[in-house]
């Protein structure tokens, strides 16, 4: 047999440019990575976003403050209620308004249920892209049970638009607490089953451990927040660091990782699901009675239908809110809350008219995705898949 020397076997090759996405199953249809490859090694990459840009901020400037709610549903469409709540809190801060205790508790409960859905579907998608299709189906089913509850409360599976400035659309249905108490353990059981399938799975561990690693310093420099930042060991959670709503009264832990790799991000999310479930159970026990919104006469909420049709004052109030919008004093605020991906900020500027002058969203995953290029440099091409999955880019939020 003829002998070959080592150097004769390596082919001289130029780095290859590969366009990954937007029509790539693992890119969720919303992002393109232009990857520069040397063999299978990623030498550099340019992450291009914007495929889901819908002009969110421009649209907001053309409607009243209330009409922004349906748009916020479509920011992070994996957990719309958290966006609803974030926006409602921002406008309420601008108005200097405090909502009643029952409303705050309901917001916490629904928000945490939305967070469970978001983390489930993120973990599900990431696992599926690594070949764990069973896990995907289990987790999506676990989410679906919670979606059923949310549908019962809000009337919609995904696009709830349930919050209002100064309150909520309506109160919880009668059997809500019992439904949650029976469904949530079922969902947690499914999630536990997935953990057993994955966390000691050789293939899953090889694909995620030590892949997409980032140090806490770099994560902070990139502006990371949320589970991605916590996976590096930084215990920053807006709910603990700057408590809002009633999170101060509820007992929960912040899970942190130590390596900042894909595995830690995955485990952090699953642990956060348990903590969210803890919060929901406590909040259900403490849920007070009372109004779910500020009083009608503040001119912020639409008056009751019966009064609108029978008294002239309420008819006028209804007309003014619909036609002119809520009167928000001039000023600017930055309000932030812990959404599923991290710190969701709303920077609102009002010029005193009924419309937002500026409605800026600080999307948490915009900052997270920015570091993708750094996370994958020097790694293999297939490593992009779990890394992108564990960052949990949501196009609606990132591109707005």
């Amino acid at each position, binding site marked *: 047999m003829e002998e070959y020397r080592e150097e004769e076997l390596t082919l001289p090759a130029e780095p290859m440019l590969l366009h990954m996405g937007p029509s790539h199953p693992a890119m969720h249809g919303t992002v393109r990575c232009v990857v520069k490859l040397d063999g299978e090694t990623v030498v550099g990459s340019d992450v291009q976003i914007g495929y889901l840009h819908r002009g969110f901020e*421009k649209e907001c400037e053309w409607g009243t403050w209330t009409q922004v709610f349906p748009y916020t549903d479509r920011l992070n469409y994996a957990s719309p209620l958290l966006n609803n709540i974030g926006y409602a809190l921002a406008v309420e801060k601008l108005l200097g308004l405090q909502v009643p205790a029952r409303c705050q508790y309901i917001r916490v409960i629904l928000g945490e249920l939305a967070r469970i859905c978001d983390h489930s579907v993120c973990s599900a998608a990431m696992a599926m892209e690594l070949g764990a299709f069973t896990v995907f189906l289990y987790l999506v089913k676990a989410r679906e049970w919670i979606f059923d509850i949310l549908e019962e409360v809000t009337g919609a599976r995904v696009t709830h638009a349930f919050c209002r400035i100064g309150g909520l659309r309506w109160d919880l249905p009668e059997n809500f607490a019992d439904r949650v108490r029976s469904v949530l353990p079922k969902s947690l059981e499914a999630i536990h089953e997935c953990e057993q399938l994955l966390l000691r799975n050789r293939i899953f561990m090889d694909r995620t451990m030590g892949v997409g690693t980032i140090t806490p310093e770099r994560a902070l420099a990139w502006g990371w927040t949320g589970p991605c930042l916590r996976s590096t060991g930084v215990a920053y959670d807006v709910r603990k660091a700057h408590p809002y709503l009633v999170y101060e009264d509820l007992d929960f832990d912040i899970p942190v990782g130590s390596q900042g790799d894909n595995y830690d991000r995955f485990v952090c999310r699953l642990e956060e699901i348990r903590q969210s479930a803890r919060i929901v159970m406590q909040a259900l026990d403490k849920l007070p009675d009372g109004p779910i919104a500020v009083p009608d006469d503040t001119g912020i909420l639409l008056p009751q239908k019966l009064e609108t049709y029978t008294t002239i004052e309420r008819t006028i109030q209804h007309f003014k809110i619909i036609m002119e919008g809520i009167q928000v004093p001039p*000023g600017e605020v*930055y309000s932030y809350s812990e959404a599923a991906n991290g710190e969701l900020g709303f*920077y609102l500027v009002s010029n005193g008219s009924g419309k937002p002058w500026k409605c800026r969203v600080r999307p948490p995953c915009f*900052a997270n995705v920015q*570091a993708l290029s750094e996370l994958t440099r020097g790694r293999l091409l297939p490593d992009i898949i779990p890394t992108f999955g564990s960052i949990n880019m949501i196009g609606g939020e990132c591109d707005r």
Partner: protein
Amino acid sequence: MSQRLVDLVKSRFPQGVLESHDFRGDDTVVVRREDYLEVVRFLKDSPGTAMDFFVDLTCVDWPERKPRFDVVLHLKSFGSGERLRVKTGVPEDDCTCPSLTGLWPAANWFEREAYDMYGVRFSGHPDLRRILLYEEFEGHPLRKDYPKEKRQPLVPMRDDAPPQPPPFPERPH
């Protein structure tokens, strides 16, 4: 909440701070554009302030006002949890602002977006391209004088392809 920081900036840059206010607990300093980078560097690096976390950067358009644009930066200190908003005015005829990419890598995309949407050019930015829109997009859509219904010209498939007629007649706007 962070009046301390505002005072620190004021004493360090007596000429640079044009205005400061506190609304609903949010402290804001408005600084001259020439001092913007130095003020932010001071806020980030000096131990007394340590505003080490880049939260957000965006612009606001005030067409009637001079300077027309505000560049709005939100900072946070990880140690103390304090937050501060830094604003600087950018005139329309000289639409540039110093880039913060040298201080935080996170500023990169946020500044690209501000450029994309408002046309403010960040000097010193390593890669100032459009980010959410495409290269051929005409205008900067979040400027108040950009009509919401405005249509964009059709982008030809290739550089050498002849320009295609628009698919629908232009609507008046």
